[in-house]
C-alpha cells in the first residue's frame, strides 16, 4: 500500500525523456547564453555577434548533453539522487572537455582556457539541477494531494444527493434496479476515494464513465442520450484516473440538465500518431451563469495531465453556437512504462 510518509519529498532527477523537461533545458540554457552575450556585447550588433560566438560552443554541447541524457535516462533513474546528480555533472564536464579538445580543429572556434569552460558548465548544470529539484518540490505536494484534489473537485454534492434520492425512489417499486444503481455508485465512489496518483487503463476509465452515466440516466431518463465512438480506442493506454468522468459530469450538469428537450453527449476516443485523443461534446446554451464549477474541474484535470505528462498532454475547449467541446490529447503510454 501507500508509503507511510507520503508528504516527505525525496529528490529525484527529472525524466529526461519527457518533451517538457527537454524544452525547459533548452530554454533555460539559451536564456543564460543570451544573458552572457548581453553582458559581453556593447551594442545590439555586438550582442548578436557574442551570441553567435557563444552558440558555436553552447549549441553543440547542449545537443550532445541532451542526447546523452536521453540515452542514460533509465540508468540515471536507478541511481540514488546524489549519485545521479554527480554523474550528470561529470557527464557535462566530460562533454565540455571533449568539445574543447576536438572543438578547435572541428569547429574552428577560438576557445578560452578549459578551466573557464569547466566553471561555466558546472554553474549552468548545477543551476539546472537546482531548478528541477525546486520544481519537483513545488509539484510534489500537488502530486500527493492529487488524490484529495481529485476527490474534492469530483464529488459534486448535487450529483451525490440527487442520485441517492433517485435510488430511494426505486427501492419500493424496482428493488433490482435499485441494487444495480447502488453497485454502480459503490464502484464510482471506490475510484473517487482511491489513491489516484497512479495511472489507470483507459478501458477502466470508460467502464467507470458508463457506470456514472447509467446513474444519470436513472435520474434524467430520456433527456440524456449518450453516443460512444470507441471502436478505435486504445484500451490499454494508461491515463490519469478521473480525467473523463468529471468532464461527463460537467456535460450533464451544464449541457443536459438546463434543457427540457433531450440532449446528446458524444464521446470519441481514438489513437492517432501515438497519441490518445478524447473528444467530448455536449449541447450548450449561452445563457448559463454557472461556469465557476466547470472551470474548476477543467483546471484540476489540466493540472493532473501536466503532472503526469508535462508538455506532452493538452486539453483544449471549444464553444460553438450550441455545442461545447473538450479535446484532450495524451501520449500513448502502455503498461510497464
Amino acid at each position, binding site marked *: 500500500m501507500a508509503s507511510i510518509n507520503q508528504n516527505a519529498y525525496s529528490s529525484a532527477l527529472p525524466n529526461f525523456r519527457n518533451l517538457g523537461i527537454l524544452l525547459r533545458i533548452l530554454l533555460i540554457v539559451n536564456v543564460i547564453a543570451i544573458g552572457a552575450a548581453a553582458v559581453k556585447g556593447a551594442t545590439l550588433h555586438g550582442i548578436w555577434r557574442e551570441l553567435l560566438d557563444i552558440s558555436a560552443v553552447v549549441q553543440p554541447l547542449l545537443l550532445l548533453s541532451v542526447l546523452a541524457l536521453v540515452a542514460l535516462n533509465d540508468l540515471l533513474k536507478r541511481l540514488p539522487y546524489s549519485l545521479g546528480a554527480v554523474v550528470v555533472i561529470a557527464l557535462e564536464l566530460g562533454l565540455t572537455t571533449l568539445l574543447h579538445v576536438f572543438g578547435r580543429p572541428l569547429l574552428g572556434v577560438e576557445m578560452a582556457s578549459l578551466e573557464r569552460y569547466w566553471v561555466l558548465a558546472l554553474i549552468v548544470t548545477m543551476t539546472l539541477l537546482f531548478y528541477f529539484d525546486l520544481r519537483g518540490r513545488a509539484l510534489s505536494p500537488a502530486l500527493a494531494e492529487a488524490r484529495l484534489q481529485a476527490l474534492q473537485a469530483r464529488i459534486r454534492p448535487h450529483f451525490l444527493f440527487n442520485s441517492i434520492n*433517485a435510488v430511494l425512489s426505486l427501492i419500493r417499486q424496482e428493488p433490482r434496479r435499485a441494487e444495480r444503481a447502488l453497485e454502480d455508485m459503490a464502484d464510482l465512489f471506490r475510484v473517487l476515494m482511491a489513491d489516484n496518483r497512479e495511472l489507470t487503463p483507459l478501458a477502466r476509465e470508460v467502464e467507470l464513465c458508463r457506470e456514472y452515466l447509467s446513474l444519470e440516466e436513472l*435520474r434524467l431518463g430520456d433527456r440524456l442520450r449518450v453516443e460512444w465512438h470507441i471502436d478505435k480506442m486504445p484500451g490499454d493506454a494508461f491515463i490519469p484516473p478521473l480525467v473523463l468522468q468529471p468532464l461527463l459530469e460537467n456535460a450533464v450538469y451544464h449541457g443536459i440538465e438546463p434543457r427540457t428537450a433531450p440532449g446528446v453527449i458524444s464521446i470519441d476516443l481514438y489513437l492517432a500518431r501515438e497519441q490518445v485523443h478524447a473528444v467530448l461534446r455536449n449541447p450548450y446554451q449561452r445563457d448559463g451563469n454557472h461556469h465557476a464549477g466547470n472551470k474548476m474541474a477543467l483546471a484540476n484535470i489540466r493540472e493532473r495531465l501536466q503532472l503526469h505528462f508535462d508538455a506532452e498532454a493538452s486539453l483544449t475547449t471549444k464553444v460553438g453556437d450550441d455545442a461545447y467541446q473538450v479535446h484532450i490529447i495524451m501520449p500513448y503510454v502502455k503498461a510497464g512504462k
Partner: protein
Amino acid sequence: MTEARERPLRVVIVDDEAPARSRMRDVLADCAQQLPLTVEGEAESGRAALALLAQRKADVVLLDIRMPEMDGIEVAQHLQKLDDPPAVIFTTAYNAYAIRAFEVHAVDYLLKPIRASRLREALLRLSSAARPKPETLRELQPGPRAFLSAQERGRIHLIPIGDIIYLKAELKYVTARTAMREYLIEESLMRLEQEYAERFVRVHRNCLVAKDAIRGFERAAGAGGEGHWVVVLNACDEKFAVSRRQQHIVRELGR
C-alpha cells in the same frame, strides 16, 4: 389560515426528475397516515406547474429549485399571481447558495432525500416561512427571470423575456408588447429596468425597448421646427420618441 383543517391538505409536486417525483409521492403516502392529504398533481416544469394550478387548487406546492427553463424560485414568483396562491416549500438536493439565502430570509425548504418526519412537520406547520413575500423571492432569485407573467381570468400567462419588444408604463400597469399581442403586468418599470439592464434600454421616462428589437433611429420634425429622434422597431409599427436625456443611446445603438 388559522381555521381547523377539515378537508385533506392538497399537495402539488413540482420536480423535473421523474424519480424525485415518485420518491416524493412515496414519502407523502407515508405522511398521509398521520396527516390527511391528497396529491392533486405532479408537474415536471414550472410551466406545467402553473398550468396545473390554474385548473386545480392546492394548499401547498413542493417545488424543486433547480429545473430547466425556469428555476423554482421564479416559479414561486409567478405563482403569487394566482388569486389564492398556495404555500411553497422548496426542495433541493444541494444548493449551497440557495440554502444560505433561505436561512437568511427564513424561507421553508427541505433537503432531498427528504425524510417523512421532516416533510410531515413542514406540512403540519405551513408557517409564514412557506409564504415568502414577493420581495423576498425577488431577492432570492440569482439572475433575471426567464419570463414575465400576466394574470388573465385566473390563468397565468408566461411571456418569455426574449419575445418582448417593449415595456411601457401606463398608470397602474406596465404594458409588455410581443409580436403577437400585449399583456398588462403588475411590475414597476424601474425594477424591470434594473433586472434586465442587459436586454432593454430606456428611451424615455416610461418606456423600455429591447435592444434586439431596434431597427434604427429616425429624425422626426418637432412642433417648434426643432427635430428629435424616434426609435423604429422590428416586428411592430409603433415608434417612440427618444427623450432628450436619453439622446446618447442613438449614438450607442444607432445602425
